[in-house]
């Protein structure tokens, strides 16, 4: 197998073996500490423009099952692991991780001391890097110098749907009609709504508020997605017009966009939150749940409109994990209630959203 290199912008080089396509892949190098769910992570649009390091060393053990994909393609530009299983063992596996990467043309590397890479990122923050099977380290480094900063790219544009579509309509009459603004949505958000009897119409991220409201939705979901929310002024403006018109659920990027619309700022975390073990506390009850997270930016609540309040905080670093409005039906969460991968503890958020829609509508449609 050809040799491959991981080269970081700080000049550090990690040799390994290629387990994917030939070529090179550039991106912001980020790590995720989940021990399971590599396929869900690989198909999560929020990883657009990033090189994903998995801290768990044994990846690919249970193979690939197309039923668990969270979007139609592999989203990170490349994958970095300690060891990718040569054979998979699971009754639902259809191909190995290696086959999946090669088939989808993704550059990936194994044999890397991923803990050393993770420690470097933790100490120095996320940084650009490249995985290459074709270049020398020097050449790769030179290219990295002229690499467009991850923070300056509007990644939402590259992952959002290009047309309006309806997610599988649940059998029978839908209880609620939901409009979903797609900044890089994961399928399990739609599945979760579908399972609760909602019909979901998915709109491109640049859809004007009035087009969305024209559907006369019972509720609006602002989806997760990649990149810096500060680049999304237009979307923030439209979302500002949605608030108050119908119950709103914002997840991850959707939470950040809604927070901005309510006057808050956002900032970049040194190395983000990516994993399935982050403790989040609901401020009102003190209740702690374990959450799945994948975000590089967080909300600065200092400018927040007086009618909004911080509803959830992260117990690790006290960052904002959710906001709500005092008198209007809006709830946003920084973490992923849809899990996939990660703990299922927060699916109740969808139930609360349904309740919110039911209350506003005066009961079931």
């Amino acid at each position, binding site marked *: 197998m050809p040799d491959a290199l991981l080269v970081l912008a700080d000049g550090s080089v*990690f040799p390994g073996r290629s387990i994917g396509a030939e070529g090179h892949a550039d991106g912001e190098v980020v*790590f995720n*500490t*989940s*021990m*399971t*769910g590599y*396929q*869900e992570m690989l198909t999560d649009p929020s990883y657009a423009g990033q090189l994903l390091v998995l*801290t*768990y*060393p*044994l990846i690919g*053990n*249970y193979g690939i*099952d197309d*039923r*668990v994909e969270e979007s139609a393609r592999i989203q990170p530009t490349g994958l970095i692991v*300690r*060891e990718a*299983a*040569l*054979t998979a*063992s*699971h*009754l*639902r596996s259809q191909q190995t991780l290696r086959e999946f990467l090669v088939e989808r043309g993704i550059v990936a590397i194994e044999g890397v*001391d*991923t*803990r*050393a890479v*993770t*420690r470097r990122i*933790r100490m120095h923050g996320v940084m650009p890097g490249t995985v290459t099977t074709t270049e020398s380290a020097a050449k790769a480094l030179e290219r990295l110098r002229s690499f467009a900063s991850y923070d300056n790219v509007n990644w939402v544009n590259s992952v959002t749907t290009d047309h309006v579509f309806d997610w599988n309509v649940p059998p029978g009459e839908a209880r609620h009609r939901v409009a979903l603004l797609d900044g890089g949505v994961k399928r399990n958000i739609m599945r979760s709504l579908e399972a609760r009897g909602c019909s979901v119409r998915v709109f491109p991220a640049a859809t004007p508020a009035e087009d969305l409201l024209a559907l006369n939705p019972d509720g609006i979901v602002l989806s997760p997605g990649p990149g810096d929310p500060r680049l999304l002024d237009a979307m923030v403006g439209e979302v500002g017009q949605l608030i108050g018109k119908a119950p709103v659920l914002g997840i991850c990027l959707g939470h950040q966009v809604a927070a901005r619309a309510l006057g808050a700022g956002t900032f970049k975390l040194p190395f983000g939150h990516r*994993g*399935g*073990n*982050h*403790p989040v*506390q609901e401020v009102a009850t*003190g*209740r*702690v*749940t*374990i959450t799945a997270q994948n975000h590089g930016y967080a909300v600065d609540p200092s400018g927040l409109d007086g009618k909004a309040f911080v509803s959830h905080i992260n*117990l*690790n670093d006290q960052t904002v994990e959710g906001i709500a409005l005092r008198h209007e039906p809006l709830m946003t969460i920084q973490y992923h209630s849809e*899990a*996939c*991968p*990660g*703990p*299922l*503890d927060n699916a109740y958020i969808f139930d609360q959203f349904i309740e919110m829609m039911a209350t506003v509508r005066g009961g079931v449609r």
Partner: protein
Amino acid sequence: MKPASVLIIGSGPIVIGQAAEFDYAGTQACKAMREEGVRSILVNSNPATIMTDLHIADAVYIEPLTVPVVERIIARERPEGLLPTMGGQTGLNLAVELARAGVLEKYSVRLLGTPLEGIRRAEDRELFRDMLAKLGEPVLESEICHTLDECVAAAEQIGLPVVIRPAYTLGGTGGGMAFTMDQLRTVAASGLAASPISQVLVEKNLLGWKEVEYEVMRDGAGNCITICNMENFDPMGVHTGDSIVIAPSQTLSDKDYQMLRSAALRIIDELGIEGGCNVQFSLAPRKDITDWPGDPYAPLPYYVIEVNPRVSRSSALASKATGYPIARVAAKIACGKTLDQIPNAVTRKTTAAFEPALDYCVVKIPRWPFDKFALGERQLGTQMKATGEVMAIDRSFEAALNKAVRSLEVGGHSLLWERPEWRSGGEFPLNATDERLWALMAALRRGADPFDLSRQTAIDPWFTIRLQNIVAMERRLLAEALHPELLRDAKRLGFSDEMVGQLADRLPEQIRALRHEWGIRPVYKMVDTCAAEFDAATPYFYSTYETENEALPEDTAAAIVVGSGPIRIGQGIEFDYASVHAAWALQEAGIRSIMANSNPETVSTDFDTSDRLYFEPLDEEGVRDIIENETGSGDEAPSSIVQFGGQTAINLADPLRRSGLPIIGSSADTIDTAEDRRLFERFLQDLGIPQPPGAAILTLEEAMKTAQTIGYPVLVRPSYVLGGRAMEIVQNATELVTFVAQAAEVAQGKPILIDKFLDGAEVEVDAICDGETVLIPGIMQHIEKAGVHSGDSMAVYPPMHLDAEERATIVDYTERIVLGLGAIGLTNIQYVVLPRVPGEDPRVFVLEVNPRASRTVPFLSKVTGVPMVQLAVGAMLGQKIADHGFPSGLWPERNLVAIKAPVFSMSKLTGVDTYLGPEMKSTGEVMGIDRAFEPALAKALIAADMALKPNASVLLSISDRTKADALPLIHKLNESGYRIFATEGTSKMIEALNIPVTPVTKVLSGDHPNVVDVIMDGSVQCVINTSENRFTGSLRDGFHIRRAAAEKRIPCFTSIDTARAAVSALVTAADFEVATLREYVQ
């Protein structure tokens, strides 16, 4: 609400299924209580524990774990709360009994951790099933039965095979699988006998399904988290304590993982547990391995098998595997804290409310006792048989597995070991036994397909394919010339230098030299609970062949304490106790303590115990790599301490000396003098100290000659072996021939020792020496005569029958031996004292000298108040014993009597003879302490479950040789109102004494009732059985009697001395008092 004071129940003696993990849990709980400002009161009958040290809890009771005793403690201490979840099944059962007896209500004691209702719903099979049904969890087809007939009917309805699970038992005691109706009757009877409420569950057998465990926690506010999940290498059918276990799970997808995680959290929430809990699941396997009905595309079917509403062996493993201190957090939750209010001890920044993320793979392998019990039934099933376990951590499964095998210390076997008969074309035994892992390897080496092996064993192909990876590397090492890349790849798969050398035809030392030349050295990575996401402060490391080293040497002086590895018969928790104290003593002396050990159950592998912990195999390579890593460039290597970790550590003295690495304490030369027979003989001769005549021999001829010269009976044993393995008293030449052959196999080329067997009182001392002063904390006398292994003997402090001159002789010999050997630190000496001839000098002979900490160190430290390990470590560092305020000679005897009694796990080891001899068989110990002999003895016997019930019936079967000794005992039994049953010869003797007796036949094939019947039907409640030795018919005859007693769980005495003591203790027991250890010792 925070209680002001809490009573913590320990788990009692170490038995199979309940080992050092509860010392770890209890110690953490006591520390947590102190941090919370809660007064802790501890009760445990096991003196060999850190938790029973005076400074761990605020009040320590070393007393039997029974309702009347604990009630007296509660009456004295009036604790507000009772925490039963740290003491294993023993603690939980005792709490239930205390509640049932109304004690908790009477004294207004609040049950902490798990509500009584929660315990009952988890433990009672019927309530458990109801709970699962209520939660909508799948319920496995099963029937709750209280009689044998019900069991048979249930099995007929469910269909064979079935599993029998007794309620409220430990380690699956009494349970098992049944494939036929005959088996069902046997297993069901044993299960009903084992259950304290005579209730068993007859359950559908999920043979071949995956077994997965989750460790979960919940606080009083209802916050629930998962600490760790674990997957068993061995599928359903093998007790999880006997399974190879991997953390985290490897073959579960995120969907599978989260489905089971959510189920575990629902269960702990429903049970209302405030603390830790273990949930065991069975998950559907690949259909191409073991088929099951159902849709493979629906969520995988699973069943909840078992819930332990307390900390457990698995939670200790999970704590060590993740770095998350489960018991400590559980104790704080019991005091009323919520998870988010408890700081994370690892990161010191975040809180306990998070789930650990692992960035390595952990492999646990059980340590079975079949090297000692060659005749034991090796088949593994639902009843646990392992005495201990090892754990290894690495970045790949293959490497963790190889390291775990190296840590096992089973005859020095690596994964390359094969049974000789496998090589000669025999079948590889793929059924579940302790040797299955090696059999799988052997089959793969001969071309077996991993997938086929998986189909035969139901072990997931993920695992067999990884075994195949190891075999592929073996082939490369056999075929290719060594080159750096190959060697690095081999090291990354965990191959030891010895394995590489064996395959590449070099010496291990040459491989090591090559590694250094090629720059192939292990790095050490931190176990930090968070996969490096946060900057952690845990000094807890494992080796791996990667690029970045996180365990950099520090500038301050350090010393390495070599631990004792897995708990096994002969090397138990006592050595972990000594290792922990050694680490603490170093810290007190201002030296950084570095602990090396491979046992996940222990206090020594708590990252709080030492300044730095290396979780590594304790072989030469593992320890030398640690020393090299701790040696800064050009600096001097840190010293190693090998005196406290039993034979595991002391065996490293010689390799370390050869490598020029410093050892503090007794030198390798001193160790040699004590262990090499010829050197030792000369040494004693020079001092003029007698030992039983004998010789070290290498051939049978020499053996015959020696025995003839010194006269039978003789004691035969291999040198350099711990716990009296393969030791026997031999009466004549015929026996000698048989036994020397057996001993030679164990001795592995080292000499065999033959000594005159002296029939006297056995006496044991531990001494501490700094090179000038010899301090003897105490003398212990064994109740059993010489011939029973000291570890299986009841030991009494102070000695019962030694006169002043005999004591003086022992002190004199001890001082001269210790100083003469140049032993620095601890030395243990065993003597035999022959009955005094009036007018003559005492007759004291040296049996054995061990220049290291012995298993009596914790017992003696506790009852004498002498900090033995601290003084010993001080002496090693050059401090003087006198400077600590201790004199030379025998430390004044305390005003107390303490008796150490052995505890056995015989009911769990089918096929093993319980007869006591020179080879050690006990797994643990208890202590009875009081102001006088009789109450101390009564307490020891009660705690060891060997107490006689008044007015009971007793079965006697006495060998001819011991009949004379037995006469006073028989009279005493009769006077005390016992009904006596006896075998033919014995009953004739009793009739001759005009004492009423019921004769019972020994012949099992003839009339009923026979000896086994009267035991099994409950006619007798105690057995006294003596035999000559393993070569005579009487031993074979007695086997069935002793096994029946073990299975019926009634006391069985194989020594007249012990039986006599037990009868006298009963007669005088009356009412004993309870007091704290401090009150006794002061």
